[in-house]
């Protein structure tokens, strides 16, 4: 194709063509089938780009709970109302057509709202992270911390065990219990009790540990410290520190040198018996293996539970594109890994597995046929962030009558719902959001209060939802505790329940009529999922949590 002609075509499309050139283009179109074809290709491309650019399901928009583009389209809703008008005046078809046009711009009168441009940047208070803990017993009255927690300014105290803390400046501190300390900033920690090893890389040079009357300024590499009730003693393992304040103000200590600060600690070599980072790693691995083994025993018992619909003990699965269903219902219920699902560490450390659904195409597909009287869903999940408006745990494909959706809203609320009647729409005033919400299909979403925010990123959670039409109740649990209990009213009663084709960690909408899909992949990891066809009791849920919880929880 002559590039001049192509340019003419684009200028015509963009309405910047001169009348003379437009004449030329018309002549070319008449003369050459190739130009004609090229013109139509350009028009089609620009139309497609325009459609894509105005596509309402783009990421900058928020979807309703169930856009259901595959079944329900705006016209099926507006049709009858408009039909009545058109019966009276055929002329009103014009108005109707305008109505349709409008409908295209806002399908389903979607309750979409643009995510505000002035989104407030998320912020977290913290100066350090708790990298590892082994056998830690937190002191009475002290805050219980989990591995991976961001540590804010403030006190940390534990009676037993070992904790490894990474300061944001780059220094690593290993404390042996009993220990009491206070994190003051990225660059400063006060120790009031306990033994500690500090490793300070060049990037963290200048990091300060305050003990007794002095400040220990690290000038590179490694030192040990013991703080007792009377005073403290410091030993340089490798490198150099400078003391500031107190009687030894200005003194430098080099490799192998020790100094008492205020007396009271008589141990000659402060460093002897202090754990190194690699020793902590080994101890942790050992403890995790034990915990993992304990879990395997209880998990094996669980597999023969006749109430179980399906059970995916992902933690023990090491390879392949399949997650095994371990319930008695067998192999046909195995889940299939689709797309960029990553196998990563599970909640028992690197020896156990978890499935990560970080990317939009990641999903595990399952098919759980049959009808059920009730649902109990439980899972262990680590949430990295709630990136999307709705973040999928377990979602039936079509969300048809009797089918469940289990997900987490971006404000940290757990959501459980079952479609009551997929041929109806609901409109209701949502008190929480203070607005009228319209949803495709009659269903009700049962929420918990927010349980997750970004400070919980990386923690493991045991989540459970128990949906029991017979008892008219929906109970939701987090870490074995009942956190929400709702009544199923007559209006929203549905039975029997089904699942059918469904996805873990994402939502498959295979019946949709466009290529667009709602982005709901879970940015996190799931390492165990169980589905029961009966309601489990609060005690049973709690014992599932107790038996399955990872080290340190």
């Amino acid at each position, binding site marked *: 194709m002559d590039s001049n002609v*192509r*340019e003419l075509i*684009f200028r*015509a499309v*963009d*309405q*910047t*063509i001169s*009348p003379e050139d*437009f004449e030329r283009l*018309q002549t070319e*179109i*008449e003369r050459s*089938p190739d130009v*004609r*074809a090229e*013109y*139509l*290709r*350009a*028009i*089609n*491309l*620009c*139309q*497609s*780009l*325009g*459609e*894509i*650019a*105005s596509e309402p399901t783009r990421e900058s928009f928020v979807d309703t709970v169930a856009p259901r583009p595959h079944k329900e*389209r*705006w*016209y*099926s809703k*507006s*049709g*009858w109302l*408009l*039909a009545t008008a*058109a*019966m009276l005046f*055929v*002329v009103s*078809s*014009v108005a*109707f*057509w*305008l109505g*349709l*046009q409008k*409908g*295209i711009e806002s399908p389903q009168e979607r309750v979409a709202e643009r995510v505000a441009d002035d989104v407030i940047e998320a912020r977290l208070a913290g100066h350090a992270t708790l990298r590892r803990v082994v056998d830690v017993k937190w002191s009475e009255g002290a805050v219980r911390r989990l591995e991976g927690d961001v540590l804010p300014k403030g006190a940390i105290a534990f009676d037993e065990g070992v904790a490894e803390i990474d300061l944001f400046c780059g220094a690593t501190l290993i404390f042996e219990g009993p220990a009491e300390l206070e994190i003051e900033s990225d660059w400063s920690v006060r120790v009031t009790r306990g033994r500690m090893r500090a490793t300070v890389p060049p990037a963290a040079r200048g990091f300060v540990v305050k003990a007794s009357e002095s400040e220990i300024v690290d000038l590179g590499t490694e030192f040990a410290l013991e703080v007792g009730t009377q005073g403290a003693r410091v030993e340089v393992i490798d490198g150099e520190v400078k003391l500031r304040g107190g009687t030894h103000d200005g003194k430098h200590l080099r490799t192998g040198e020790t100094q008492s600060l205020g007396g009271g600690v008589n141990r000659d070599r402060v460093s002897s018996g202090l754990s190194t980072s690699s020793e902590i790693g080994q101890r942790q691995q050992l403890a995790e293996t034990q915990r993992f083994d304990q879990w395997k025993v209880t998990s094996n018992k669980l597999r023969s539970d006749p109430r179980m619909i399906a059970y995916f003990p992902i933690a023990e699965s090491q390879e392949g594109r399949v997650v095994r269903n371990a319930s008695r219902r067998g192999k046909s219920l195995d889940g299939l890994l689709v797309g960029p699902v990553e196998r990563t560490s599970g909640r028992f450390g690197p020896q156990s597995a978890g499935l990560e659904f970080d990317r939009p195409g990641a999903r595990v597909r399952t098919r759980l046929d049959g009808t059920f009287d009730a649902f109990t869903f439980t899972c262990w999940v680590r949430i990295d962030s709630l990136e999307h408006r709705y973040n999928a745990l377990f979602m039936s494909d079509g969300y048809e009558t009797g089918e469940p959706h289990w997900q987490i809203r971006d404000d940290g609320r757990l959501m459980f719902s079952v479609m009551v009647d997929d041929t109806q729409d609901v409109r209701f005033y949502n008190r929480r959001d203070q607005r009228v919400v319209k949803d495709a299909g009659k269903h009700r979403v049962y929420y918990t209060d927010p349980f997750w925010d970004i400070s919980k990123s990386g923690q493991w959670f045991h989540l459970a939802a128990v949906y029991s039409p017979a008892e008219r109740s929906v109970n939701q649990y987090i870490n074995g505790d009942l956190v929400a209990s709702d009544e199923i009213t007559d209006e929203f009663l549905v039975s029997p329940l089904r699942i059918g084709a469904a996805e873990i960690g994402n939502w498959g909408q295979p019946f949709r009529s466009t*290529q667009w899909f709602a982005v709901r992949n879970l940015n996190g990891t799931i390492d165990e999922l169980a589905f029961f066809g009966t309601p489990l009791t609060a005690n049973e849920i709690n014992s599932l949590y107790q038996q399955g919880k990872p080290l340190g929880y």
Partner: protein
Amino acid sequence: MNRPNDSPKDREQQYDEFVVLLAKHDLPLRRYVRALMPSPDGVDDVLQETALECWKKYSDFQPIDSQEPSEDFLRWACVIARFKALSWQRDRSRDRLVFRESVIELLSSDALRTVLGHEEERRAVSACLQELSVEQRRLVLSVHSPGESVARIARETGQQTRRLYHRVNALRDRLLKCVEQRLAGEAADG
């Protein structure tokens, strides 16, 4: 226009069918009309007139191929749309750029073929967009967003219009080639 024995009920049912068909084919029909009109300005008007005319004549519509009644509807609506596009341009031939009737005739038969493959084309465009960088994608989509144009974006971003044009056209060229390849590939794979 109604069959003599049409009861209101039948008519109601017909209307419901009609709405479904028209809605289903809205985008391809819009493309078809756009292909016959040099400016997007009159497209909405022509579509409106087409919809009205289609409804008036809907009782006469007989699907030829009962297997694909919906596609027949699109063909039928396109015939009506072609007349509407012709007459719209005839009325305005004095005050703006419009295609000659001979050009519209030639384009209309080819255009019908392309709109029938509109879903595939659009899928291909989406896939091809993914091959561009984020910045390129943003540029080419922003130019085609409703109410946007190259000139406007150039003004707002302080870029030279001509330079921006070059970039946009280069991206369109790339997309056209990519789409063509993809569609050829799809056809070959059956």
